[in-house]
């Protein structure tokens, strides 16, 4: 048996922290087991919906048996989640996926790169890297549309933070790679999460500077546990499950070695 479970979680708090971005703390026995970079499936209570919404775990508080989800409202499911208040219950499935390989950052200059709603799962990652103290240096490069950022103050506690904004209203004007270059961020290993164009750019950039990159991917999912084969990504080698070139993002990922992916 794995650690996966589907269970009700109690809402401890929820607030909006940026336009359309919500910060939700849930009390759940899963907290004990969570690895940074894993995600949960969150079920809307609305009976017309069937599928859990995959949402990355932003932070864990083991003492309070709590996990934190920071998510963007993108449809009717997440719009429902935004209405939840302290004391409400919400059904979740997890913990799902593999998480970031923290051991790859031992003795290395590690850079956490997040874009938009890809920023949250890197917070717990930064926290654990800081706690274990095994990396040479932990930097974080976060990309946002504009100065309406979120979680930046928290990243500053665990990492050297650099910000990029599309409109240049804060930090480097441009994308996360522009910020990496402009700030000459020392980099041997990258842990990244964000939109596909950003991840493709990071894969190229990493290979140009001889760094390793581990990318967290996102795709439309149904089961979340590796059975339905809905959320596949293309891989260079044949995959273990179907012996084609399709890894399952929900179970083989969401974090992949960039060198193994055919993006």
């Amino acid at each position: 048996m794995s650690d996966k479970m589907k269970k009700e979680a109690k809402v401890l708090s929820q607030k909006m922290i940026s336009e359309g971005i919500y910060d939700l703390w849930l009390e759940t026995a899963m907290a004990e087991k969570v690895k940074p970079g894993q995600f949960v499936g969150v079920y809307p209570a609305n009976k017309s919906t069937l599928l859990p919404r995959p949402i990355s775990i932003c932070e864990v508080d083991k003492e309070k048996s709590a996990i934190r989800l920071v998510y963007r409202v993108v449809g009717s499911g997440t719009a429902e989640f935004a209405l939840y208040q302290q004391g409400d219950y919400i059904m979740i499935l997890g913990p799902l996926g593999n998480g970031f390989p923290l051991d790859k950052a031992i003795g290395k200059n590690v850079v956490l790169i997040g874009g938009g709603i890809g920023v949250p799962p890197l917070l717990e990652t930064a926290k654990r890297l800081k706690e274990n103290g095994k990396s040479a240096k932990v930097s974080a490069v976060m990309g946002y549309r504009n100065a309406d950022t979120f979680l930046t103050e928290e990243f500053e506690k665990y990492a050297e933070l650099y910000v990029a904004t599309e409109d240049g209203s804060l930090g480097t004007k441009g994308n996360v790679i522009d910020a990496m270059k402009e700030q000459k961020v020392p980099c041997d290993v990258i842990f990244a999460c964000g939109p596909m164009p950003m991840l493709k750019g990071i894969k190229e950039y990493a290979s140009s500077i001889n760094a390793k990159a581990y990318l967290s991917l996102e795709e439309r999912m149904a089961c979340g546990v590796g059975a339905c084969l809905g959320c596949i990504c293309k891989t260079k080698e044949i995959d273990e499950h179907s012996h084609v070139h399709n890894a399952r993002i929900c179970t083989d990922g969401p974090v992949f070695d960039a060198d193994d992916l055919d993006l």
Partner: protein
Amino acid sequence: MTLSSDKVCLSIKKVSMKMNTEVEIAGVKFKNPVMTASGTFGSGMEYADFVDLNKLGAVVTKGVANVPWPGNPVPRVAEVYGGMLNAIGLQNPGIDVFIERDLAFLGKYDTKVIVNVCGKTVEDYLEVVERLADQPVDMLEINVSCPNVKEGAIAFGQNKDALFDITSRIKAKAKQPIIMKLSPNVTSISEMAKAAEAAGADAISLINTITGMKIDIHKRKFALANKTGGMSGPAIKPVAVRMVYEASHAVKIPVIGMGGIATGDDAIEFIMAGATAIAVGAMNFHDPYCTEKVVEGIEQYMEKYNVSDINELRGIVE
């Protein structure tokens, strides 16, 4: 009465009432009528984390072909009101890996194994069927109804002559009893059921998914890369119940019913429509514990209405 004595009474009642949930299809006995719908449960490995597979009547595996199939591009799934669309495209590892890994895994459990077989040509199907001849497999389910692949599958299931032809050719080679899995995307399900029966099918299962489409109006794109996909989930249940009713009245061979089953009550509805067994499909994605809950729900219904044998309920509405 205290809660604990209430519990004692209930357990006494359970012991005193002998319930039979066993059903039989083509000589194969299933401990209960609950199966998994092909493609929604893998080969059970992923769901064994949640469900005791020993409690299920049968595990019906994801379709397997003679060679590995890569399936369709993503996005492959989309949610719709009361259900979902999928266009996985029958991604599977091929029969070699399937026998070595998936059948070896299922062999550890006390449940019946039904292997769903797919192919692009009749020869592909026959190759898989022959490879399975000496394997620990109880029945074969022949997929002639997947709407998401360009060759094979549904091409055999939408024309009664093609269905008769493939059914008789597979029946001639198969060592295990065969179930033909029918598509709802036909004019007359009764005609298709009769064609399968006339060609020698031991049973039929229905419904596969209903072809649908979803457009993302914000992105001005199809929600699925394949444009169309198969719809499943609770929203299709009334269509499935109607088709199970029609098919079971058209043929004498057993019918396995599926389409949006979420609870024991849903399962009973299909059985009353004429199904001998039922399968849980898309609802596995909603609730990984669903199959076991359906088994329990059936027992609760039988207890409540004092039904001693599940077979008494089959086709009870005329």
